[in-house]
């Protein structure tokens, strides 16, 4: 009789404990993993949102931004993937940056983005085509018409910028030669201004800063509606699919996160991103934030998966 | 000593280092051929130049006249081993092989300890035991120093910098 009672109590305990846990969530500090070194764009997003997010959680705990660089983000991603699904470890992910190794089939990959619990998105940056202000090329058609390969500057061969350049130039029918190896978007955009190349395909926010200072001209944007006056958009250039080329900042937790915990995290994140303090920071620093909830994050992920699976041949050989 | 001893150990000490460098260079060269042409260009260039330089180094260690020439122009600071460079130049006495090995051994043991049990236990253990065994310091003093170093590390890294110190393979 005692044994049966003990067993029953244990069963009841096991069933109610997760629910009780969820109701108390969060009860201790939450680790927000950043898979790159301090100082990059992703790092800044997390550090800017952390104090605001703390205010929107049901219980007041600390959000601890933790940099786990190395292997282009794979290490940080693996850490989140393997973490205990209790809601105390979440991370920010560069999509499609983290996607590419998975689609390419890199050996030793220790995460599966399809299984992560997606919580929200900070938004996506679109790409565009830019040339130095003094350049004779006014439209993408001018680049196409060139009888020699157009020189584009980009980062290394496994980067998003590189594959975006390859995919876009093929879609647009531009003969290209890529001058690769620059370290970061500021660097390869500056390179084209310096004259290392003829044109550049890069993230619009980065290029827009150089437009403001008068060094660059954007001649085409890979958006459905062009945000840059005078620049053609993707539809005008004849390739609406170009709008799928983007850099997204998505937040996720480990697989199998209990739904209540995920909901709490997701809603708090959304509230934080919509907080006026966030908007103020965004305006002052010139870094755009487009709050997206869990569903939209999942949607972005799936869209990107489909796109890059189609263009997987551009992603380079598997490591 | 007017002429270098031709014993094996002297030969090894003289020609060993450049041969080791040669081995390392060859390993890189062989590995380089496994990569596509664009990736292997520069490493191969450096590798082949190294082979030439190492050959010159080997030459400079022989007692031939060409060796003498190489020595004079490219490496005047070191003479042939066993021959003093100039009168009255004692040079630095290197400690005997056994003492070196012991010294390296202590650090190797510390490295192993850190990897197995982590930084915070291994550090005081290493510092204290080294001071007691090799330095023949009193046990109390050694433990004091060892503990203060461990405390300093804990305070500065774990507390102030929030950099958790490695816990070791046993505990990760």
């Amino acid at each position, binding site marked *: 009789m005692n044994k049966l009672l003990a067993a029953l109590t244990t069963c009841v305990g096991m069933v109610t404990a997760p629910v009780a846990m969820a109701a108390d969530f969060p009860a201790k500090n939450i680790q927000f993993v950043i898979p790159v070194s301090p100082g990059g764009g992703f790092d800044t997003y997390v550090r800017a949102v952390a104090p605001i997010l703390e205010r929107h959680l049901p219980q007041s705990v600390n959000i601890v931004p933790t940099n786990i660089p190395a292997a282009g983000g794979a290490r940080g991603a693996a850490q989140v993937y393997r973490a205990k699904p209790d809601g105390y470890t979440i991370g920010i992910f560069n999509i499609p940056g983290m996607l590419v190794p998975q689609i390419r089939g890199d050996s030793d990959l220790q995460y599966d983005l399809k299984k992560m619990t997606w919580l929200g998105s900070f938004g996506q940056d679109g790409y565009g085509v830019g040339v130095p202000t003094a350049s004779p090329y006014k439209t993408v058609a001018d680049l196409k018409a060139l009888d020699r390969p157009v020189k584009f500057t980009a980062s290394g061969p496994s980067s998003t910028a590189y594959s975006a350049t390859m995919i876009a130039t093929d879609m647009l029918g531009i003969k290209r030669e890529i001058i*690769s190896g620059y370290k970061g978007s500021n*660097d390869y955009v500056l390179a084209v201004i310096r004259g290392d190349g003829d044109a550049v395909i890069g993230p619009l926010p980065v290029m827009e800063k150089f437009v403001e200072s008068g060094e660059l001209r954007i001649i085409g944007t890979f958006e459905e509606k062009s945000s840059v006056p005078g620049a053609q958009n993707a539809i005008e250039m004849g390739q609406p699919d170009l709008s799928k080329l983007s850099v997204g900042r998505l937040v996720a937790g480990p697989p199998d996160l209990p739904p209540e915990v995920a909901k709490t995290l997701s809603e708090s994140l959304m509230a934080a991103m919509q907080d006026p303090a966030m908007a103020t920071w965004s305006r002052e620093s010139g870094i755009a934030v487009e709050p997206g909830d869990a569903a939209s994050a999942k949607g972005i992920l799936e869209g990107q998966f489909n796109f890059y699976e189609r263009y997987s041949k551009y992603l380079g050989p598997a490591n | 000593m007017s002429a270098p001893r031709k014993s094996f150990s002297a030969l090894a000490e003289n020609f060993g280092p450049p041969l080791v460098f040669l081995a390392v*260079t060859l390993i890189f060269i062989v590995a380089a051929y496994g990569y596509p042409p664009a990736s292997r260009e520069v*490493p191969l260039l450096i590798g082949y130049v*190294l082979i030439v330089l190492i050959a010159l180094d080997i030459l400079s260690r022989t007692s031939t006249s060409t060796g003498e020439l190489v020595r004079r122009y*490219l490496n005047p600071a070191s003479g042939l081993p066993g021959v003093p460079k100039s009168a009255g130049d004692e040079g630095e006495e290197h400690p005997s092989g056994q003492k070196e090995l012991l010294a390296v051994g202590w650090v190797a043991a510390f490295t192993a300890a850190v990897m197995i049990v982590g930084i915070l236990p291994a550090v005081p253990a290493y510092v204290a035991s080294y001071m007691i065994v090799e*330095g023949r310091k009193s046990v109390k003093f050694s433990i004091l120093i060892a503990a203060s170093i461990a405390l300093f590390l804990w305070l500065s890294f774990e507390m102030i910098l929030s950099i958790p110190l490695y816990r070791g393979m046993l505990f990760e």
Partner: protein
Amino acid sequence: MLDVALTAAGNVFTFQSLLFLTIGMLIGLVVGVVPGMGGTTALAVFGPMTVGLDPYSALSLAGGLMGAVSFGGSVTSILINLPGGAPNAATCLDGYPLAQQGKAGLALGASASASSVGGVIGVFTLLLVIPISKKIVLAFGPSEFFLLATLGLVTIAACAPGRMLRAMIVGGIGLLFAFIGFDNVNGGTRFTFGLEHLWEGIPLAPAMIGLFAFPEMIELSAKGGSIAKDKGQVGLTGTLDGVWASFKYWKTLLRGSLIGTLVGAIPGVGGTVAAFLAYFSTVQASKNPESFGKGNIEGVIAPEAANNAKDGGNLIPTLAFGIPGTAEMAVLLGVLVLHGMEPGPTMILHHEAEIYGLILTLTLSSILASVIGLMMVRPLAMITRLDAHILVPSVIAISFVGAYANNSLPGDIVLAFVFGVIGYLLIRFDYPRLPLVIALVLGELAERSFAQAMMISGGSWSIFVTRPISALLFALIVMALTYPMIRTLLQRRHSVEEVS
């Protein structure tokens, strides 16, 4: 411009800002001393803590930190031949021999004053140059980077007088090591031999810690005694002489500072190269180059001025275009962004006052850190009197932790040990170690820039002489390579003539 500067000054000279300046400076000094940790780690840890503070407090903290690290790093370079950070490696060459001669105070004093003046000159140059900073950054492309890296590599031959052949061999091996890891230009990993830890290449800090901490400690451990060979001589009297020495050798000081600023302004090249180039050029310009490496005070003044001046130089591309030339600058940019300053070419347009504030705090810190450091010279110099059996395990323990803390990777501890063995073997068999460090720092930049230059020019080598700055650098390289040989030849001819 003056009114902006006054606004900035008004905001910096408040109690709160000065408080944060002091805090930053103390952190910088301590972090600088710990081997393997430098401004980057410190900024990365403390920078984000400033969220919620006003921008001037945050900038005061950052400026305070950055201005103090280089001097902190020189302390261990001089006292135990272990660079506190890569830019301090050149300081070991003459700093440590001075400590061995019981003149640690002299060396530390010189380092303090050289660091201050270097920092001030670097910042002053930055201010002068800000209006044309964009032109400068745009003038340096892959072709120039390649030649600069080569110029730095050429110093390998000169950093071990009398051992040029062996220096070049070690440098070559170092270059091979530099190629380990991910190839940024062509993709794919090379020479990792199956070790995942090597995917990103050989991390500089643990390798340097191993190369420099280990051998000295092993020797001490096997021989016993203390660093200062004659304990009785270790004293404080040298310190003020040291401080004054920087001004006595003002040409060296100026040369070091200018080289530091210029080289620091080139993204990607960094303070280590600046310090080595400053050292190397001082050796060449000296009337008795053979005295270097044995305790020539100018060999401390030049690199220490350079590695502080580089902070001013580093800010040029960072502020002009938001292009951080070094990891430290990248972290600084992150801190600036956190406080609502957008990185990129517009930052300096929209936030002039804050930028001047940062510059001012950097200057102040550079000077104050040296003053505080000087007050600590006596206890610090006493380290050279410590018995080996206390010093050795302490240094090894702290160094290895520094190696680990760099990236929080346990593999780095093993790496430090491996490089320690390599370093010991190198000095045991009379090969110089410094070329390995130089090669590790510059190898990747050199290869990548070369490949990019070739892509830009379409395979033509003429790019290195047709671009004006490239041509100048090319000439400098040729000069650097031939000058020592010409000089030796001329000296030989002199001595032959004297004899006959």
